[in-house]
């Protein structure tokens, strides 16, 4: 049902076709980090090259260099490999492996995070409701009691249970 309409609508707008020869859009762009918006005057030694790593460090201790912040850092390695004389086929193979590996790592990390969160919770399903209990720590509120991680009512902190659209009553009866 939705497909014919999607087709009809898409026939009314310009279409783009992907091709291995012509990129559709720029893919390796980075967001401008607010730390990099400042103007810096940094004395450096002339005897050594000033690289992107140095620039990142100058902007902030935790800043990553642009080469690592791009969505496809593997492409840089690919170009380096080809420049060093590696056959394109081998370089591409390495690139594909690296891409797959980085994606798997990311997916695993996400999976772990979810599992960890799940472990903190105890789910009790009563049929009508599913109660989710989790351990909380009083010290989560921090030294001044105003940390965002704290639980429940705290003086001077907004508690969003009365925010517009916040549903607290059961929305269906089973």
């Amino acid at each position: 049902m939705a497909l014919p309409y999607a087709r009809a609508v898409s026939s009314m707008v310009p279409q783009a076709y992907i091709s291995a020869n012509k990129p559709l859009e720029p893919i390796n762009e980075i967001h401008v980090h607010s730390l990099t918006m400042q103007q810096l005057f940094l004395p450096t030694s002339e005897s050594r090259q000033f690289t992107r790593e140095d620039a990142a460090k100058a902007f902030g201790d935790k800043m990553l260099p642009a080469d690592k912040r791009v969505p496809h850092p593997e492409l840089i390695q690919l170009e380096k490999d080809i420049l060093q004389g590696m056959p394109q086929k081998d370089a591409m193979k390495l690139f594909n492996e690296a891409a797959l590996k980085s994606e798997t790592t990311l997916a695993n990390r996400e999976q772990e995070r979810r599992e960890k969160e799940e472990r903190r919770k105890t789910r009790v399903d009563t049929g009508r409701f599913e109660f989710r209990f989790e351990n909380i720590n009083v010290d989560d509120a921090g030294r001044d009691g105003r940390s965002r991680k704290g639980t429940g009512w705290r003086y001077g902190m907004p508690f969003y249970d009365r925010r517009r659209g916040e549903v607290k009553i059961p929305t269906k009866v089973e």
Partner: protein
Amino acid sequence: MPPRIPSQAIGGAVEAASGQSLRAASQPCYASQHANSFSTSPPVLNRYKRDMRIWMERYGKKFKLATGGPNYLGGRNQPFTENSSFKSQPVLSEWSREEIWKAVIARGESIKAVSSKYGVDMRRVAAVVRLKELEKAWAAQVSWFRGCSSRSLPTHIAHAIPAFMMITFKNRLVLKTTNHGYKHSFASLSDPSHFLFSTPCQFFSGTRSGILADTQWQS
């Protein structure tokens, strides 16, 4: 939906403006469409409405039906004529989306590799794969519906809607008004004669063959 502007008035205006006659196709039907249905004078068509009508007749024709491609008012990529800085950006075609899905799911390539191969943003690749999966899941769910070819489904619905309407209006009597029905007529009748449905018909049409209101009912 029938035109809100009474077509008789339009016919006259356009006829006057462009020399074309629309009167043949006109189906005057004031009573059901106008709040001031008691007024007998035809509604005045102002200049803007007339200009719009003329534009629709002369230039608007090519926008009436789908052309199978973009058919924008302002030309190739410009849907809004007044906003020249707004350009309609191309969207990924169905074929391209299918290719991306095949590469990622069927051939098991990584999203990054597919993204760099075709020069499509990684987030776009991920979104395409996600939505394609959803689409295929839905398609599998409604596979029982395949008896009806999916391409013609909206057509089926378009045909079905008037049928539903017929059912709704089946028991309602609708009288189509004619031109003559809107004239003021002062006719002198002899007292003893009976005033029947057929009597005003004869006066309005000026002939004896006026169609009886009774026979105009549509059931």
